[in-house]
């Protein structure tokens, strides 16, 4: 165990050198390799926001769009139906038994199917049928729901990215988490309230006419500025989909902040026609079920641009313009988890973490030196190498260092010496019975090897499981703990063993063996 070939020695120190090189990148920037250990949000300050989309309204909305095509199909094929009702997650109707097969065939037609999309990705239909005597239920299949959900999630991520980019935060992270969640990380933000407000809004904009009486197909909505209750037609004149741009501006006359919007060609045509036909009536501008403003149409608006005024502050008009530009979310989004750390707390945590790391490190080094003298020194050199290589590996992985991660490093420092202690204690025992010092060291290393490996594998198991199941900061702890085990094994069995061999082979008289 004490003999090393030249190649082996060379590769050991080459690996150590590489570790030190990568570790140094954190302190001195290098133009060629741009790698660094990232600081977690708990250390640099920032906001972690977990969002969850609620697809239930979307399912209902999608079912609504199927109503007319289904009725058309039934009428065209002379299938008599009655009791056509639509509920939260299904459409039900009554069809005579003998016609049900015909309907089924039309419903699952592969080509030119106007009602039931075939999802080639899963090789399945989006909708499925359920029969109960004369009753027929139409609802989304598992795969239909899945693709609906995925599409909504993808679109939401896109829109959220646009909104956050528009606000102009530095290096935001926006990731999909599971099949319903979106993770947003905003480093350096200590007051995320404005962004939270922007993220939480669906921003579904519609222009709808105000009715004079409680006509059929209208609903009562509140005008947010004055609290006035308005009866608003359910029929949408134009929606936010027709919007191509929105900018905050000041009104020429009143100097109030307003939002100037521009419609696409189709929207402009429609808007022109409606405003021409309805001069004198009020047009409600509805955002997420509340009326922002309901001005009277004084004249036809044919240019495709218009303004929204609603007694906004400048910030409000800026945010509204931003929301309209980025588009509406396909489904409502809720914040299910938020963690925000202010930059000064982050800095305090780094200071305390690094300070306790240094103190712990120095204490362990002093202890080992007192206990094992020259071999304590060897162990300490391997401990320093261990720490440097650990930082090196974390740099290569571009891992994120969190506060528990720093704790993981400190813990590694405490436990790293275990391998060396195990070996030295073993050698001590061997020295009692063995006359040849070299032989004693050799058997010592050999016999301790199994124990060292067994002991470290068990800790590695804990680290791996923590990494898989842990979330956020805990993951950071698992990464440093796991990395620490690997570097510990390397430094104990290669670096420390080589240094020991140099001492033992050069000091045949055993002057230093006061283990």
């Amino acid at each position: 165990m004490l003999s090393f070939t030249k190649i082996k020695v060379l590769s050991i120190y080459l690996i150590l050198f590489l570790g030190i090189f990568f570790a140094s990148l954190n302190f001195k920037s290098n133009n060629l390799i741009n790698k660094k250990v990232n600081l977690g949000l708990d250390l640099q300050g920032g906001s972690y926001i977990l969002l969850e989309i609620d697809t239930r309204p979307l399912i209902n909305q999608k079912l609504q769009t199927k109503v007319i095509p289904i009725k058309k199909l039934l009428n065209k094929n002379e299938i008599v139906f009655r009791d056509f009702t639509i509920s939260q997650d299904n459409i039900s109707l009554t069809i005579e038994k003998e016609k049900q097969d015909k309907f089924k065939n039309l419903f699952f037609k592969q080509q030119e199917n106007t009602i039931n999309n075939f999802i080639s990705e899963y090789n399945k239909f989006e909708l499925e049928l359920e029969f109960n005597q004369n009753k027929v239920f139409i609802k989304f299949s598992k795969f239909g729901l899945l693709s609906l959900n995925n599409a909504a999630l993808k679109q939401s991520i896109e829109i959220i990215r646009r909104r956050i980019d528009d606000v102009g935060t530095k290096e935001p992270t926006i990731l999909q988490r599971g099949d319903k969640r979106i993770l947003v990380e905003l480093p350096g933000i200590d007051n995320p309230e404005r962004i939270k407000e922007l993220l939480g809004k669906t921003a579904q904009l519609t222009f709808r006419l105000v009715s004079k009486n409680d006509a059929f197909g209208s609903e009562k909505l509140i005008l947010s500025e004055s609290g006035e209750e308005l009866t608003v037609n359910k029929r949408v004149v134009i929606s936010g989909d027709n919007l191509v741009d929105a900018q905050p501006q000041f009104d020429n006359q009143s100097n109030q902040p307003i939002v100037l919007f521009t419609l696409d060609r189709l929207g402009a045509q429609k808007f022109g026609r409606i405003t021409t036909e309805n001069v004198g009536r009020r047009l409600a501008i509805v955002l997420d079920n509340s009326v922002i403003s309901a001005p009277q149409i004084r004249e036809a608006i044919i240019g495709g641009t218009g303004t929204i005024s609603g007694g906004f502050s400048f910030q409000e008009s800026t945010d509204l313009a931003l929301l309209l530009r980025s588009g509406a979310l396909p489904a409502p989004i809720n914040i299910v988890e938020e963690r925000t750390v202010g930059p000064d707390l982050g800095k305090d945590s780094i200071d305390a973490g690094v300070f306790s790391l240094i103190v712990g490190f120095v204490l362990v080094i002093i202890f080992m030196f007192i206990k094992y003298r020259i071999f304590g020194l060897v162990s300490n050199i391997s401990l320093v190498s261990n720490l440097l290589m650990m930082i090196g590996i974390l740099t290569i992985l571009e891992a994120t260092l969190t506060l528990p991660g720093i704790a993981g490093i400190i813990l590694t420092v405490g436990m790293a010496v275990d391998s060396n202690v195990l070996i030295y204690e073993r050698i001590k025992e061997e020295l009692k019975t063995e006359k040849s010092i070299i032989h004693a060291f050799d058997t010592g290393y050999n016999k301790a090897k199994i124990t060292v490996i067994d002991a470290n594998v068990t800790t590695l198991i804990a680290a791996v499981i923590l990494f898989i199941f842990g979330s956020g900061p805990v993951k950071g702890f698992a990464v440093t703990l796991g990395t620490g085990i690997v570097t510990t094994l390397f430094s104990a069995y290669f670096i420390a063993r080589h240094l020991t061999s140099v001492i033992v082979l050069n000091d045949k008289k055993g002057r230093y063996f006061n283990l």
Partner: protein
Amino acid sequence: MNNKINFSKFFNVANIFSLLAVIISILFLFFKGLNYGVDFKGGTLLEIRIENKNIQIQDVRESLNIPELGDVNVKQFGIEGDFLIKFEKNANENEKFITDLKNNISKKIASAVNFRRVETVGPKVSGELLKQGVTAIILALSAMLFYIWIRFEWQFSLGSIIALIHDVVITLGIFSILSFEVNLSIVAAVLTIVGYSMNDTVVIFDRIRENLLKYSKLKTNEIADISVNETLSRTIITSLTTLLALFSIFILGGEILKGFSFAMILGVVIGTYSSIFVASPVLNYFKVTQRTLLKDEDL
């Protein structure tokens, strides 16, 4: 070895003591339960720093006298003027909630307030986090059980797992008795304890296995005694260096790491004890002898 300590003499006493400690822990866990933090219970946590150091904890409490918050818990945290506020309400039902609360506190105590940390966890997420934490601990235990079973015999595996469960239950029991908060980092600490205690147990088991093959005449308890003594200096030194590092986190690492390092310190002490006084006697109860080890090789 001159400093031979007759550990096996204390095995019975220690086992009764351990059993009592485990029973008391379970009773506390069952009846008093754990003081779950925001991570596992849901709700909101605020860490604030008030510039005006004359503001007392009662003032902060009064400023939070808002009925909709529900159960509010305020405590001093770290240096003077730093407070930790916890309440059950999920602040994200309304995006403006935190902003309003901030203004409210600043106005009522008439001093600049720095919001250093805000954590809000919804009920669904907190439930998932708790489930994940428990799953992680159970999985870690099973994985280690399996590893030891492959590397040693099933009796060793059982011995080590009994020791691990002993450590985890007592650590959590102490957290329950002291009403210390259990959050995500405590789960990490418990898992590390599991790893550390296992590490310790493996070292002793390794020696027991070696000695079982070396001495065929001795009783299992005598072999356990020899093995524990032979590895004793290592056990003490490693525990010491680990504790040195942990105490430096506990004292100097800041408030946030206090709970974590406290759990670890407890775990290292209990884990070291259990490797000697719990895991080793189990081998005797299961009548592990040289023949147990040789059986495999004969096949």
